């Protein structure tokens, strides 16, 4: 079996590794920052509501917990993204080591599929909360945009990941068959 270029020698793998480290750190930082906002929001909610009332904006008292819940879901999405990227990074490293067709990679791809599916499901309450908050903001004269697009791309990604998991599982079995062949 021909040896594949290592991570340090294949520019694409090296680039992928750097990009993955960067985005993992970015999403981790964003997730922590958003998560820290949740208790702050809940602690100061009465102050926030008082300020809004003083500005002449009557908003439901459930707004602040609603925003806190939205932030919680967003932090969860960031966490799922970090997990997804860590799994992808492990796969990239195994390619660099010249041995990607291992059962562990099939399991990683499967876990990535489930992570993407959970992420898609989490976007439903995020979208609903976002729409509700945007409506309240619009009622008080503020503009807030919510982008709710059809999750076709997400569905394709999930399908692709599960199919790739099967491809890698079969690849690992074929590799096992070939092991010991001279």
């Amino acid at each position: 079996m021909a040896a594949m270029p290592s991570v340090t020698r294949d520019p694409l793998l090296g680039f992928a590794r750097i990009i993955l480290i960067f985005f993992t750190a970015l999403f981790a930082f964003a997730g922590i920052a958003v998560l820290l906002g949740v208790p702050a929001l809940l602690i100061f909610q009465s102050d926030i509501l008082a300020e809004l009332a003083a500005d002449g904006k009557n908003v439901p008292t459930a707004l602040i917990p609603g925003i806190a819940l939205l932030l919680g879901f967003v932090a969860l999405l960031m966490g799922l993204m970090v997990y997804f990227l860590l799994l992808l990074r492990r796969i990239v490293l195994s390619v660099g080591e010249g041995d990607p067709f291992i059962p562990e990679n099939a399991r990683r791809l499967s876990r990535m599929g489930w992570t993407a599916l959970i992420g898609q499901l989490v976007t439903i309450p995020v979208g609903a909360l976002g729409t509700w908050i945007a409506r309240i903001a619009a009622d008080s004269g503020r503009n807030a945009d919510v982008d709710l697009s059809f999750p076709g791309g997400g569905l394709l990604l999930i399908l692709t990941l599960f199919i790739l998991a099967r491809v890698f599982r079969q690849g690992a079995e074929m590799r096992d068959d070939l092991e010991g062949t001279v």
Partner: protein
Amino acid sequence: MPVLVKLDDLLHDRRMTLTELADKVGLTLANLSILKTGKAKAIRFSTLEAICRELDCQPGDLLGYED
């Protein structure tokens, strides 16, 4: 394993080392050692052909079967 590999005897008769044979047939020393020690699970025809060419032998000289 019932299939025997008689590479040791052939190398001895031809006064060739395993390393020299590995270079001639284009196999790594590690893979040829796997074959020599009977740990190989399968052999490609191209490998068999190359070994028989370099050792001037028949496949039956290299492989045997013992129940």
